[in-house]
């Protein structure tokens, strides 16, 4: 044997029982999929900051914004029209003398509402539809899929416009249009996951232990689909917000005198030459919302993607 520096004494060659502790020592703390994902997410500063900003914006729109302003969204006073940013009017006033601060946050509320609506639709309609379709399979799946394919073929814009014509333009119509088309993507994703998961061994194991189908879906298949569901959610929200702003911009959405970030931007665009501040504030809030949801979505996708695990 090659020589060692150390002095070897006979007692070192006695049998030992070290194994019990050594073998099971695991370097690093135990971790679950979610903890792992959370840790990965934490390292993504962009995503974390976005999360924070989103909360902040929510707070501003629903609570702080309105509280801090004595003005209403509708109060016109032509004498103070077009006054720039000042200590009294933090975001300035528009052509009717309405306080922009209030209006911007009012618009933000609309956007956030739409975002939440989209999220709820995704969860309550999209996930359920997709889960049922994917899990049951067979003819049920076929039929349900055809419906989705057709719905998919009709763009959201078209439905929104048609809805707008039949009903009055406004927040309700946008909601209805979203309700018809906004959840189809999520349904497809969830269906895809279901099809994938239900053939896997853990599903078979569960069933052979006597689990009911509902239990299988609720306790096993859905939790394993949460990853893509969450990621997709994070992207539908900004898409919905965008859709509403867009419609409001071209005049199909929120109508005067209500405010939407889209309509505010639309009004401001026309007067950009002379009163650029009318554009900056709603645009900034809108872009902030979009950036944050997108960054968060990206971050979540990276965090929840098992392929990235090393």
């Amino acid at each position: 044997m090659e020589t060692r520096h150390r002095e070897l004494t006979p007692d070192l060659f006695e049998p030992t029982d070290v194994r019990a502790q050594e073998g099971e020592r695991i370097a690093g703390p135990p971790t679950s999929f979610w903890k792992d994902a959370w840790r990965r997410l934490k390292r993504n500063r962009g995503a974390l900051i976005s999360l924070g900003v989103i909360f902040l914006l929510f707070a501003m729109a629903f609570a702080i914004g309105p509280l801090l302003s004595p003005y209403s969204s509708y109060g016109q006073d032509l004498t103070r029209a077009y006054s720039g940013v000042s200590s009294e009017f933090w975001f300035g006033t528009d052509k009717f003398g309405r306080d922009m601060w209030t209006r911007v946050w009012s618009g933000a509320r609309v956007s956030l509402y739409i975002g939440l609506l989209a999220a709820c639709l995704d969860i309550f309609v999209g996930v359920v539809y997709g889960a049922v379709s994917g899990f049951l399979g067979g003819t049920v799946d076929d039929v349900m899929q055809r419906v989705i394919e057709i719905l998919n073929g009709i763009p959201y814009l078209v439905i929104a416009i048609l809805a707008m014509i039949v009903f009055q333009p406004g927040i309700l119509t946008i909601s209805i249009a979203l309700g018809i088309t906004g959840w189809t993507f999520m349904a497809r994703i969830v269906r895809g996951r279901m099809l994938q998961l239900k053939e896997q061994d853990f599903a078979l194991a569960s069933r052979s232990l006597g689990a009911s189908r509902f239990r299988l879906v609720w306790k096993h298949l859905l939790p394993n689909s949460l990853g893509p569901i969450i990621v997709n959610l994070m992207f539908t929200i900004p898409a919905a917000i965008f859709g509403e702003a867009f419609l409001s911009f071209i005049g199909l959405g929120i109508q005067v005198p209500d405010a939407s970030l889209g309509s505010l931007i639309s009004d401001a665009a026309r007067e950009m030459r002379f009163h650029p501040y009318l554009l900056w504030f709603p645009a900034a809030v809108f872009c902030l919302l979009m950036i944050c949801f997108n960054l968060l979505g990206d971050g979540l996708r990276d965090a929840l993607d098992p392929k990235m695990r090393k």
Partner: protein
Amino acid sequence: MNGDSVLQVNDLQISFSTYAGEVQAVRGVSFDLRRGETLAIVGESGSGKTVTAKSLLRLLPEANTRIKGGEAIFEGEDILKLSEQRMQKIRGEKIAMVFQDPMTSLDPTMKIGPQITESLKKHLGLSGQKARERAVELLTLVGIPSPGDRVKQYPHQFSGGMRQRVVIAIALACDPQILIADEPTTALDVTIQAQILELLRELQQRLGMSVILITHDLGVVAHTAHTVAVMYAGKVVETGTLREIFYDPQMPYTWGLLSSIPLPTADRSQELIPIPGSPPDMADPPKGCPFTPRCPYAMRICAEEMPGYTTFSAEHKAACWLHHPMAPNVEPPVRIGDAR
């Protein structure tokens, strides 16, 4: 069959940096590959065998891998230190590799023919007609029927076993001196496994290639290897010729491996003895012999210090404190003797 050495690996050490810290995947691996022979590297998952193999061709992801030490001498040079330019000349031309999963080893959007001729064009300068003919020849060599037609098909039109043959054909295209096969049969059915192994053996004899075969399956080893290196937790714990390892193993891990496979000659009353426990975490490797927690013969020194190698013959070396003069005499489990 004792050719001279075509590849010498000395004290190879490789680490990965991960979010959990540094993972020492390979901690001092040495072996010799002789011309015209098959060296089997055996070990459990996580023992570092694939990392060792990939490192020879420097195919490990550069971002987080570090070759901390050691050398691999091929044709008089240390291939671990060559530039990327020079490595490209070696890959495919002198040393080729076959991966584990045939379903993902081939480019799904490229026909088989071009995937083979790519190599031919790059290394041998063949082009057009000549390259295509050689590709068909290679397909015949690996036993694919109607090669003329097959050469124009896409990977998804082949079964798993056939794809693996194609991968082997690609590897052999430029007549490499060394073929590294990383678990080439693990992802295949048992019957196909046998075919592929037979193919490899045939090809080796015919072409005089040296083969490094990585596997966790001792059955595969018995079938094809001339020399064996047993790896555990990033180290080679025993190496020797096939006979020496199977009939005269000197290390408790090897005993454990051999005891845990069923032998057709064994008598029904004998038990299969699996090795309890699992391999250590390489993010925090133990300072002594890594097998200690699972070793029935463990002694106090085993946990505290790595044993050095004891040489039993020209080929046969093992690292275990049991070989130290101060250690008690230990009889290997009865089964091994029976298999003689």
